[in-house]
């Protein structure tokens, strides 16, 4: 039984296995046409992002609309430079858009101050990166515990949460290992445990299998899939790997900053 009580964040006690968010099943076309209903968890409207490189202006995202329901798993694919990671960064509050709106669970992310945005990220977003980005001098347990240090949980409560998260990713017996003592796949699973330990509103995974061999990649994707199917987590995934993408319920393609195609995977059609 995996239960998380994010008391420090002022949430009610919740558990990954007890979250009863409605699992939306928007038709794929509706996900990007800007007509999602009020029940969507993530609602993106007219999102644009422009970078300046010297005198040159580079438009990475152009008027993008997106609706994601709670419990959805969405994979973003596209060529390099298409804006996938930029979109993920904007959704995760790591970057601010040039125009447009991002609403997550009723919160307008784009209007938050930097400090508020940081706190919001801690509460609502679980990040998984390609390079795992574990702190090498901390054990797996301590790495997973990091987000919980920001909460008001007691030491024993933190321990319970960390052990539960590590058990969920199958690394309960590796909690005292340092990252250098783990394989790449295990490191990524620790990173996933770190991302879910606070029971965030949604997970953002940027090329989570990009640095893994086929077997480890499959394991990691199976784990993410399990988080969605069994624990009703909402997952947004950027990947170049079609095999990883096909495990998502929906695959959206980005090209030159525009969502050009909405494709429902076989699983969803079924």
């Amino acid at each position, binding site marked *: 039984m995996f239960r998380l009580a994010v008391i420090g964040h002022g949430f009610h006690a919740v558990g990954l296995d007890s979250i009863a968010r409605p699992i939306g099943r928007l038709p794929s076309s509706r996900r990007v046409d800007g007509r999602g209903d009020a029940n969507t968890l993530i609602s993106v409207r007219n999102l644009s992002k422009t970078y300046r490189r010297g005198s040159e202006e580079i438009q990475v995202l152009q008027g993008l609309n997106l609706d994601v329901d709670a419990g959805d798993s969405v994979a973003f694919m596209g060529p390099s430079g298409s804006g996938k990671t930029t979109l993920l960064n904007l959704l995760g509050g790591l970057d601010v858009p040039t125009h447009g709106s991002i609403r997550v669970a009723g919160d307008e992310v784009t209007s938050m101050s930097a400090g508020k945005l940081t706190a919001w990220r801690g509460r609502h977003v679980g990040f998984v990166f390609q*390079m795992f*980005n574990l702190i090498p001098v901390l054990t797996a347990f*301590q790495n997973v515990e*990091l987000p919980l240090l920001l909460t008001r949980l007691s030491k024993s409560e933190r321990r319970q949460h960390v052990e539960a998260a590590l058990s969920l990713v199958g690394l309960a017996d590796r909690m005292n290992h340092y990252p250098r003592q783990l394989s790449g796949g295990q490191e990524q699973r620790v990173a996933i445990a770190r991302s879910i330990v606070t029971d965030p509103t949604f997970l953002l995974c940027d090329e989570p299998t990009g640095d893994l061999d086929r077997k480890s990649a499959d394991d990691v994707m199976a784990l993410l899939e399990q988080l969605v199917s069994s624990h009703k987590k909402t997952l947004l995934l950027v990947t170049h790997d079609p095999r990883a993408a096909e495990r998502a319920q929906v695959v959206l393609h980005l090209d030159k900053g525009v969502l050009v195609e909405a494709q429902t995977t076989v699983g969803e059609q079924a």
Partner: protein
Amino acid sequence: MKYWRLVLVGFSRKKFRTVLTIGSFAVAMFLFGLLAIIHLSFNQGIEIAGADRIIVMNKVSFIQPLPLSYDRQLADLPGVRQVTHATWFGGIYQDEKNFFPQLAIDVDTWRQTYDEFLVSDDEWKTFAADRQGAIVGEITAKRFGWKVGDRIPLKGAIFPGDWQFNIDGIYRGSRKADDTSAFWFHYDYLNESIPAGSSWKNVAGWYIVRLKDSGDAVQIISRVDAMYANTSWQTKTATEKNFYADFAKQMGNIQFLILSIGAVVFFTLLLVTGNTMAIAVRERTAELAILKAIGYSDTFVMMYILAESLIIALIGGLLGLGFAKLFTLSGDPTRGMLPLFYLPLNRMLLGVGAALLVGAIAGFLPALNASRLRVVEALRKV
């Protein structure tokens, strides 16, 4: 407290570099400790000078004497509680390197003027009755292994001849900073030995005047100097504090020298530590970005880096000052040039404060850069 582990484990990243940086601090703070000892030793008199004592000396120079007759005249001035005098003897004990101050003093008035120096009544009584008697400070007694009853020969330099003294007592200070390196003996023994007609006959090196009220010092100083303005033995009178300050200046601008060396040491330390912290932040760009991504604030990241810098400074500072303190326990290595060779607590605390200040300044810029780190850019560089 829950964040301390995060800070402390940071030091295990690059152990060798951490040790070197702490070592830099330790060496610098050891040097600081030594400079503080030297500064203190040169300025000891200034710091503990009696507020109610003024020194009357020859206007021409400290080494020129004043007539013995001034003793009575000074004592008769209103507001004066006690007058005594001292004369620099400048004798050599076995070897010129064995320096320690020897003063011919007025036995009847000395003890009442300098009541911070402690001698037992019995020893003083023996000393007073023994024309060749001497009272020696405990530092000097310890240095040469002298004890009460020993007979000490001194070779006169200013006052030629082979002089013999009996150690009748050992004095100690009532305060840590009191100088217990001096050797006191009877002025009468000296004066009687000087042939009639000598310019050193019936003169004293300087007078020490103890006042009834220290608030009268300025007025009495003016009065003394005015009293002897038109004589062939003009005086220069000053509070004991100013007297010691002038004396210290004669040794050169020690303060400036110490400050200069200290400033160079701290500036170098600042560069070393600043560079170390900058490298540490650069190496951990991704980690810091992750911390921010998962909800740690800019302020936290800044304090995290600053805390590392401060801990390095604190450990290095304590080590260096600790070694300096240990070094003082073996006594004055300069054979009497620095009789007060010790590192007091207030100087150690000043040292710790200075170390922390350097740590804070050195860590500030890297910490600021870390706090300004943009997660997206930082992760893109990895």
